[in-house]
């Protein structure tokens, strides 16, 4: 029985296909999902996601979100999902630097919205960089 995987972000549907297995960064660490997995709902943390299909592995950097697993379908709702090959290391580094700077500029206790947004940005950037650099050393 194949496992259908759907990854969507508010901007677009990133991925929708049948896969063999998917490994994702869940709330309590990395979690592998195979077909006929027990029904599960968990939160997704920024990190890397691996999709295996027919022996080929695709890697993606993902942001925060929600994962719903049923026996046949795995749905991932996240605010970011980028293919490892498409990550522009330089652009991400710049974004990270910008985010860290604006975090330093923001006063504590003020503008919680902003702080939360910047923190999320930093986490997303870091997740992308980790993935990119790991691939380089291999």
């Amino acid at each position, binding site marked *: 029985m194949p496992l259908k995987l759907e990854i969507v972000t508010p901007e*677009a549907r990133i991925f929708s296909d049948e896969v063999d297995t998917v490994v994702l960064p869940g709330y309590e660490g990395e979690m592998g999902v195979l077909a006929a997995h027990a029904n599960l709902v968990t939160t997704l943390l920024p990190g890397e996601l691996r999709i295996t299909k027919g022996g080929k592995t695709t890697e993606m950097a993902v942001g925060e979100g929600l994962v719903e697993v049923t026996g046949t379908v795995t749905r991932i709702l996240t605010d970011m999902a980028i293919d490892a090959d498409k990550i522009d290391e330089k652009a991400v580094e710049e974004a990270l630097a910008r985010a860290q700077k604006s975090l330093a500029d923001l006063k504590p206790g003020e503008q919680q919205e902003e702080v939360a947004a910047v923190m999320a940005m930093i986490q997303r950037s870091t997740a992308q960089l980790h993935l990119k650099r790991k691939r380089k050393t291999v």
Partner: protein
Amino acid sequence: MPSTRDIRRRIKSVKNTAQITKAMQLVAAAKMKKAQDQAANGRHYAELLNKVLVNLKEKAEEGLHPFFSEGKGGKLLVLLVSSDKGLCGALNTNLFKKLITTDFGTEDVDYVTIGKKGVQAINRLRRHLLADFPIKDPAKFAEVRGVGRFLQEKFLTGEYKKVLVVFNNFINTVTVVPTVEQILPVNPVTLGGKRDFAPEIETATASTEYTFEPSAAVVFETVLPQYVNDTVYQMVLESRASEHSSRMVAMKNATDNAKQMIKDLSLEYNKLRQAAITNELLEITTAKMALE
């Protein structure tokens, strides 16, 4: 009987109007494309989130999260999403008509608005306006998140039984449906003209329980506020898409009408001119015949 000069003047003024409406039509068409794309792209995410949460809601125990049950108070909170500008046909009028004809079951309703037209309408209707959020165009998620948080905070005070949203649901360029949806307590909502519930999912989860990692409370704690914010954002996007489409259609109609008017006026003008020439010729011939 208007003189030829009067008609010429009118043709000129109608031509100018047509030029303006044509320009507005083109601007609206460009914005419409963007707004429609934005709404369509976000819809899938919103629908899926919607689907997952409503599925979960059935499995969740009562009282697991305050967003799952009605507030203790008897009041209602209504978010009215309208446009900032006019000249978009009957868009806002229809929306307000929907608002007026909807029976909320209680008189005690507080309003929150997005869009200047909404503020005006609420004031005109002498209803109680709680807050207004100016959202720029195109709408940014960060801005709309403020609205979502405000609604959640108000709901959590327990003063309100429900939170509803009145917005223009975008179906296609010529069809826009004013819609009233309940957003809190969490409820399936219609977006883009459909309530997306694939039957396969319903059956797949009907008999089974979900495991929550680490616990249902933690998952809902993070996901529910996100759901409210995202749904409100998607509703704003749908409204914006509706606004630009309606404006484009309204301006196109105005341009077409102006063109038709120019045609009619030109015909009348030509007839008058021809009559004048014939008259003149007649006079000359008569005069000549009288001389002979």
